[in-house]
């Protein structure tokens, strides 16, 4: 019965994507728009092949992944510290809490002009934008998680002799994790988007720049090819890393799987 369900699900996927692909091919073949405005599937496939063959895409992916990993890691660490501070201090909560929420409505790319002035036209400016993109999500998630976390874990931990960093690392952090995993996921999505946006604004070797290169060359096939890469990486990280983390937590805590 189980395999039957999986087969059905797979069939649904195949049908959906086949239909989508068919529609795209059809629209391209009808030639309503010229090919430089509306690329064909074959054109995109060729662009992907060429891009991987001359290593442009491999390099771009590596550079972008490195940046997002560094930036995201920094936001996670900073966000957890900030969130914990805001959650455990009434003064901070009442003052900074509102500021954090209002700052979240600011697209992170708005920091770009300042970042350029502060860090210069280099990697650090991009990292700054990435951090600003995901920091708030992580901070707010951590604050919320710390409040939602049953108080008994903190009491039990302190009672058993955990304090300071040990209390945070061995008790508070693992106890919060199920409550912050969605915030971490959101933070990742924001980091990834901010990175691509920042890369598009500057000669940066990353995926964003490769995308802009396609525009400059009027090669819409290349643009769509890079868009597909960006989506694929985002989807894989979400589906593999975060889904895996969620499943792992559910197994440990005995929570019902959220389907």
């Amino acid at each position, binding site marked *: 019965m189980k395999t039957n369900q999986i087969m059905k699900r797979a069939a649904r996927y195949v049908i959906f994507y086949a239909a989508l692909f068919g529609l795209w091919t059809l629209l391209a073949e009808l030639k309503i728009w010229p090919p430089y405005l509306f690329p064909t599937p074959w054109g995109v496939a060729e662009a992907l092949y060429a891009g991987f063959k001359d290593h442009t895409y491999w390099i771009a992916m590596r550079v972008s992944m490195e940046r997002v990993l560094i930036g995201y890691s920094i936001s996670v660490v900073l966000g957890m510290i900030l969130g914990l501070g805001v959650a455990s201090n009434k003064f901070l909560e009442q003052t900074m809490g509102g500021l954090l929420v209002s700052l979240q409505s600011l697209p992170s790319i708005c920091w770009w002009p300042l970042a350029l002035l502060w860090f210069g036209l280099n990697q650090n400016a991009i990292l700054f934008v990435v951090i600003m993109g995901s920091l708030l999500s992580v901070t707010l998630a951590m604050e919320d998680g710390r409040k939602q976390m049953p108080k*008994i874990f903190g*009491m039990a931990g302190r009672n058993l002799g955990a304090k300071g960093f040990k209390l945070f690392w061995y008790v508070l952090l693992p106890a919060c994790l199920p409550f912050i995993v969605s915030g971490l996921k959101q933070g990742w999505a924001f980091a990834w988007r901010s990175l691509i946006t920042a890369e598009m604004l500057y000669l940066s070797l990353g995926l964003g720049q490769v995308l802009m290169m396609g525009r400059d060359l009027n090669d819409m096939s290349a643009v769509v090819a890079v868009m597909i890469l960006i989506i694929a990486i985002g989807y894989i990280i979400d589906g593999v890393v975060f889904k895996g983390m969620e499943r792992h937590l559910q197994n440990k805590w*005995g929570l019902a799987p959220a389907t």
Partner: protein
Amino acid sequence: MNASAQHIPTELPNSVQPFRPTPPGNSGGKVVALPLELPAPRALPVIAKVGLREICLRYRTHTGDRLLALDRINLEVKAGEFLCVVGPSGCGKSTLLHLIAGLQPPTSGQILVDGNPVEGPGTDRIMIFQEHGLFPWLTVGQNVEFGMKMKGVGRAEREEKTRYYLRLVHLAKFEKSYIHQLSGGMRQRVAIARALATEPDVLLMDEPFGALDAQTRDLLHDELERIWSDTGCTIIFVTHNVREAVRLGDRVVLLTFRPGRVKTEFPVDLPRPRHLEDPAVARAAGQILVQLRDEINRSLEAEYAEGVKPRIEPGVEA
């Protein structure tokens, strides 16, 4: 038995009602309350294991009112004693344990352990919570060794002790299981093993068996009594179940409803092992229940008068 009552200045001596098992020949079946016998003066001054001196605690409720939760509590617990604390809900009996555990400071008064003032949590006093407080992200074994890990005990010793204490609570086979895979009674046994693994002098038990079914609770009473006599630790056991208190305790302390004060102390002189359904246990419990009922009525009156029970803000924050 009466030595402990003697240290309580706020209590009238005649409020101490010792329980004695009915002599076999006594067909009347009535509990004979013996007159208070003053113990002979001791040669050595005995420092109580846990001493509470004039403990007061004030809370701020969510409406902003200040509420006196505990009022001048004086108690002395001897080393190796099994003390049960009963009282209506809202009398601050759980809070009392938090204070002794050092998770929360009292508003005034002093808590002494071995004559030294308590200044925070310490692994010489371990709590067992009603909701067990086990860490769901750790296996049973990792939960048990947690306190030792925090203390910096080496891995080999930790593993050995973890196995020892899991065997003690008959859960050796479940070392690798996660908490959600265990039943309520098993979880509470893990909590006991985890507490014992830090080798505390005092176990603070906050209605640990309140959420368990009757059979499981009976079983755990036997196990707890055995562990207590094996380890010789001091136990302060909070419950709202008077029969449970008499079944387990050397002494039962009844707290009043808000503010919590020591109303009466009842030494329990019944032979061990006891059983919940022993007639002597039931009779002793009956006497306590009479006084407890007054307090429960007061708590109910307060509840109805206020419409809604004032919610006591948990002051404990990790």
